[in-house]
């Protein structure tokens, strides 16, 4: 029972890490940059969905869709304000700029949404059922299903569609892509929009299991970045599977050894893996031609 319960808990949590980490994958694949404040994007999705669905009383689906659309707009804002001006000059200052924008977003939400955490209870997300003798919330299964579907869709999109291939071309050689008629700035902008939407979706999914508040994404964002690096940030499947592995490892350590060891051992394992596999579990070494 201990192991089964840990596996189910780990799958749910791991999928959240994976979903957030997919956001890192998308922008890194297209522009070699990431939004370090991905946790804030996750928080924004949850807060906006809560505002529309609970405060304004809208039905859940339109509330969630509008929240995701606004997350996409926020993603574009991140790219335009905190990434593009620096990346264009070859500066790495976007690292700090994205963190700063995330802190601003957290604080704006703190002052507008309020100081207290709120419970986001959706009728379809409450209750639990028995699976292998373990109580499971429907969301704990829905989250991995959504995460794996999105990773699969991303994989197919980048390998099978014209736009996906164009996006891959941008990262391989931006100048050549531009000469081939690909609108590189637009491609990067769309990548950021998609990245933030993924994070927003993660926030909306986790909210009924957790609660909604302005700093709910901070720890998730940190763990998701560790997961992105662990998976090898250049592989959608790798990132998602690394998320699941990280979540399951955390839950298993807690279940078998006790919670005192969870953070220490799970992050120590990340370091050990990266020491032996510097490009992550599923990443490939970048070839630089000189």
């Amino acid at each position, binding site marked *: 029972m201990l192991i089964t319960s840990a596996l189910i808990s780990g799958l749910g949590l791991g999928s959240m890490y994976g979903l957030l980490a997919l956001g890192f994958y998308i922008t890194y694949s297209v522009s070699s940059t990431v939004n370090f404040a991905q946790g804030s994007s996750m928080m924004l999705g949850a807060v906006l969905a809560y505002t529309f669905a609970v405060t304004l009383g809208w039905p859940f689906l339109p509330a969630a869709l509008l929240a995701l659309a606004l997350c996409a707009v926020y993603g574009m804002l991140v790219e335009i304000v905190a990434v593009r001006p620096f990346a264009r000059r070859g500066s790495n200052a976007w690292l700090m700029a994205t963190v700063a924008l995330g802190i601003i977003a957290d604080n704006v939400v703190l002052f507008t949404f309020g100081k207290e955490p709120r419970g986001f209870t959706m009728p379809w997300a409450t209750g639990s059922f028995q699976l292998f003798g373990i109580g499971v919330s429907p969301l704990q299964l829905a989250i991995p299903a959504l995460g794996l579907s999105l990773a699969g869709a991303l994989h197919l999109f980048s390998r099978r569609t014209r736009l996906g291939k164009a996006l891959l071309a941008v990262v391989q050689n931006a100048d050549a892509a531009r000469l081939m008629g690909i609108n590189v700035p637009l491609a990067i902008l769309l990548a950021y929009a998609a990245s933030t939407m993924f994070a927003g979706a993660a926030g909306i999914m986790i909210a009924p299991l957790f609660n909604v508040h302005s700093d709910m994404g901070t720890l998730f964002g940190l763990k998701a970045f560790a997961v992105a690096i662990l998976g090898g940030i250049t592989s959608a499947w790798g990132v998602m599977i690394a998320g699941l592995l990280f979540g399951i490892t955390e839950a298993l350590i*807690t*279940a078998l050894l006790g919670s005192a060891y969870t953070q220490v051992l799970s992050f120590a394992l990340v370091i050990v893996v990266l020491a032996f596999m510097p490009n992550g579990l599923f990443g490939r070494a970048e070839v630089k031609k000189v």
Partner: protein
Amino acid sequence: MLARRTFIALALAAALPAALPVTSAYAQQPIKIGLVTALSGQSARAGEAITRGLQVAIDELNAKGGVLGGRKFELVRRDDEATPAKGVIAARELLFKEKVAVLFGGLDTPVSLAIVPIVNEAKMPFVGPWAAGTGITKNGAKENYVFRVSAVDEIVNKAMLAYAQKTFNSKNCGMILVNNPWGESNEKGLMAALGAKGLKPAGIEKFEGNDVDVVPQLTRLKSAGADCLFLVGNVGPSAQVVKSLDRMGWKPPVVSHWGPAGGRFTELAGPSAPMVHFVQTYSFFGKQTPVGEKVLKALMAKYPDIKGPGDVTPAVGVANAYDGMMLTALAIQNAGKLDGPAIREGYYRIGSHAGLIKNYDKPFSATNHDAVNENDYVWTQFIDHQILPVGMKK
């Protein structure tokens, strides 16, 4: 020469009336009372409750003419965001820049523990109206400037064990504790309480304040045969424990420290919120003493959102802060001046006082800096967003 002396005397005489209002104005300067607490984040509601308790007491004291010959009180607040580093900065600002006479603390034990060395070194009184960590008042300082009108972990822990045994006939309780100094303080206290009765816990599990899923920890406790849970965590983390229990379909008795009282526990924890029985020092429900009626009336008059006892949440923050401020006014009056060591002695010289929580009789001494004890605790639960004494409403 005479003319010169006469001139100086006349000049002094002319200047004296001008100087007098200055002295008088000084006498009328308000006495600043500092408050460092969480005014934002998960514990914001607790910070607001402490504020309200202090403010209602200050209004009452000021209406009676203040202390030390007419000096009135003024509350100065700073947000510690439940973070020790920010609490330390705020405490230093209030002590050394705002020159508060007495500093009040907030909900979080880690923040209060970080402030304790500063106040002891500065020889400035620090009153805890909420944080229950045993080491806050029992801090080992030769000259201890920390007083508390609140529960104390080691006493609460004994009360938690006694309540679990008496109410639920529990024989093998497990601990689920938040992973911070407050959790550690309670681990020690619960181990001591169990040890004193020759018992051991079914298990000790920790969880992080931001944990979404506590099922693995709870499953370990269930597997170890726990027949009740001792819960220690603030409102958000406590809610996560209840949600995890819900998912597991496990409904053991949950005997908790007072963390759930700090916010919207029913909204966060869902329909199983009433399963958590937690300790409080006061409830505005039921028959009130004259002091209770007076305070409730003052709260309803000052704060439009308070329509009745159910809106005074968390009551413990209001009640502890109210009594803490009243006892502080007595200490300052006893001291006769705004001097840290004198006020400290002033606390020791408080005799009897009809307070909100109880009638105090020599609440502080050189060996006891805690005014509230196990005889003052009330066991409560959340029913429909209200903190009610257990069993008052099903």
